[in-house]
């Protein structure tokens, strides 16, 4: 039997994989993909709780997360393209302008 806790554990595992990807990978595109993974793990948790509580608000919220994630990816990829054009790199470690 698949319990709700199994979904939650999956969500946590996916989140950790995403987080690890964000922390460890250097390529900006991979990092963005990892962020997407984390968002989706959160969606999974939302939907699980929604089901456990018998409340549809969680599912509605997860749709909103999907929509906003799409917009975020669009902006994020545009930034990546702009960065690549100016810096000729997608290595995140070379992009340390936030220090200034």
């Amino acid at each position, binding site marked *: 039997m698949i319990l709700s*806790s199994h979904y939650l*554990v999956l969500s946590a595992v996916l989140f950790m994989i995403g*987080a690890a990807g964000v*922390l460890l990978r250097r390529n900006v595109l991979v990092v963005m993909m990892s962020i997407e993974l984390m968002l989706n793990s959160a969606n999974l948790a939302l939907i699980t709780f929604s089901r456990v509580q018998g409340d549809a608000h969680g599912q509605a919220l997860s749709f909103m997360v999907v929509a906003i994630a799409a917009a975020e990816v669009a902006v994020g990829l545009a930034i990546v393209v702009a960065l690549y054009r100016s810096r000729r790199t997608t290595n*995140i470690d070379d992009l*340390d*302008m936030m220090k200034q």
Partner: protein
Amino acid sequence: MPHTAKFPLFLIPLLPFLGAAISLIFGRRMRRQSVHLVAVGSVVAACTVALIAIFGHLLGDVSLWSLRANWLMTGGEGAPRLVDAAYTWIASGSVSIPVGFVLDPLAAVMVLVVTFVGALIHIYSCGYMAGDKDYARYFGYLNLFTGAMLILVLADNLPLLFVGWEGVGLCSYLLIGFWYGKDENATAGKKAFIVNRIGDAGFLLGMLLLWAAAGTLTFSELTNPDIQAALIHKTWQLFPQAQDFTSPGKVSFLIELRPVELICVFLFVGAVGKSAQIPLYVWLPDAMAGPTPVSALIHAATMVTAGVYMVARMNMLYSLAPNILIFVAFIGAATAIFAAFIAFSQNDIKKVLAYSTVSQLGFMFAALGTGSYAAAIFHLAAHAFFKACLFMDAGVVIHALGGEQDIRAMGGLRRKLPVAHWTFLVSCLAIAGIPLFAGFFSKDMILLGTLANTFEKQAGTTMLTAGAMRTVGWILYLMLTTASMMTAFYMFRLYGLTFLGEPRTDSRVLAELHRPSSSMRWPLVVLALGATLVGVLGAPTLFAGSDGAGWLFLAGALVTAAVLVWMAFFWASDIEEEAGRDSSYVQWGLIKGPLLGAAAVMVFVGIWAAAGKSFIKIWPAAGKSFIKIWPANWLGEWLKPSLSSWPIVQVKPEFASKANPFVASHGAEAWTMALAVLLSLASIAAALWLYRKGPNQTLANLVATLRPVYKASLNKGWIDELYHLIIVRPVNFSAWLLRVAVDEFLIDKCLVTGAAWAVSVFGWISVQLQTGRVRQYIAAALVGLAVLIFLTTRSISTFDVQVSGSQVLVTAGVKGDQVLGVPEGRYRTKVGYDFNGDGKVDTWTLRPSQVVTWTYDKPGQHRIRMVVQDPRFGKKTSTEKVVTVGAGR
């Protein structure tokens, strides 16, 4: 109050304050004439207001004089006085301190001395300070001083008196350091200020203690018998906590005091500071760094007498503490002798006068200590005249010689400065106690006070027996007589070295001698006349004329008149020779005229004293009305309403009588007078014989013979050095220690620099954190998130209880807050329940939502404790509930 009337007394101090404000604010842009017009005008105006307040009945108004006349006729409690409550200064809870002024006979004497002598000194200053660039600042300070002194004198409560007290202290400091360009002047100012702070701390403590004990600080209320009883009969225990450490009934370390004694001691400490008594006199000689008129006004005539005035003002308390009075008397007498001893060998003309002032103030305190408050005030007034005159003469000499103050470089100024000479000589005669000059009467009254039997009668109220009190009186008498003899000697030493003999001054200086201007000369003449005649105010038994004392007076008066006439004509040739173009004005206006006038008054007084009684027989109406307004010891009678507490001491009822303060026989009076005069004359003769020709071989031999004594006197008894060693150097050392250890190390290094260093270290750490690499930031955010989750998620903290008969059913969590199911496995939240209250868990479960049941044997209240064990770290938390179960089935 029957003998009270209202009068706008606030005008008296306000006028000088207004003058000060004008001089200090606009003075720089004003012409010199306007500056001194404002300064002198404001003091003269204050003097006029005071005169109206005292003698206003002549203008058809109520005045202090008419109130006193009424008081004399009807008698009654409370002194006749004019009052003025300006406004309430402090109102807080039970404390209400008004800015209230009171003019009673005591304040009246002081106000007249301050405004009259003050006005003369202001006029004199116009000439003395004529060349000074800070003319306006000088007069501003001088006016400020006069105003503060008048507040001090007119205050009707101690806090207001303290305001004036501190105000005159401030002005003293400002004027001592008036020529602040010279380092030693500024140092002298600071010394005066700091030494005075010691005294002021005592004064403040005394005031607070009085508030604690009596609940009032208003003078007129302190005569209330209930308040006085509280001050005497209550006792204060010092170190009361000492009782706690000892067993009951065995008190090893407990001092009991009557409040009034402690209060009087502390107030006296204030007076010792302000009036330069042992051990706080050291500031006064150094205060001579200020301009000479300042020395005359502040450090001789008025401010330094504030302590005497204060003790006299608080006489209703001091009379309740005769033990303290004896202490006051001995401090005064010791100061009188010691300062006179130092004055013997000082070579600075102003220093000699300064030590003389200290010595005379000692006389006043001795008088206060023997309960002769009126004698102290009398001596104060007389001293204000002759000492101000002496200082201003010294000022003329210093001014004339272009700043020279060393008497070894003077001599022979008799012919050069005739007005200064005769006024100086008259003042010397007054201070030496030659009849019938002012100092003669006041000093005689003080000496007599030590032997008056009222002093002896205080034995019952002091620690001493009657015999011991008599001895104390005699010791005081001998000390004061010695000091009086010494006074005559050092004053005539000063006179001889300055005015007699051949000039020892540089001939170039002598050729360009600065003659005193008119504004500097005639104040001297007025003061010298005061020093000659003011004593008549307090002459005892002057118009009794029945027991031979009157004939004695006639003799004295004739001798004095002869001296004055001799002075007037003996120096006539000198003046004609030296005084130059203004000779006839100087000769008749400033020298012969006043001297002959004074001689005429003396002759009149003498004849009246001897023949007054016969005159009364011939023309009773005129004689009696004259005696009515001018009785024997007129000043004492005038002051009586203010100073009547002595010897009314209520400790023992047998002393509660309104006897005359001076109950001594005429015989004692006659022989003390005669002895004092003989000793003074001998001293004068010795001094003149030794010093009439300036330093000479006889003197050198004498100094060589008395070398240790001479050294001690010259070096002022090494007291300054002693204070330097035991006070200044330890203070400096501790200041140095504090500077190095606390200021430089702890505050500068550790706190200030240390704080900056700590900030920069944390800044450096923060800089290292800010790499600009997003991944590191995210990592930090995730770690923080993990920590937050760990910290904020709680274990199950409550449980539900259902009771059914003797059975209870418990579930972790509360209804509607279901615990989430956690998968089976190794890390599980363990929940346990302790039902029977023995501290041990009775049932453990790995499923928090499981319902656990328990059956009790006994009905009643039971305590259920739930223990939750954290699955990750094994931490246990527990919650308790109390249930009531019924009987079993």
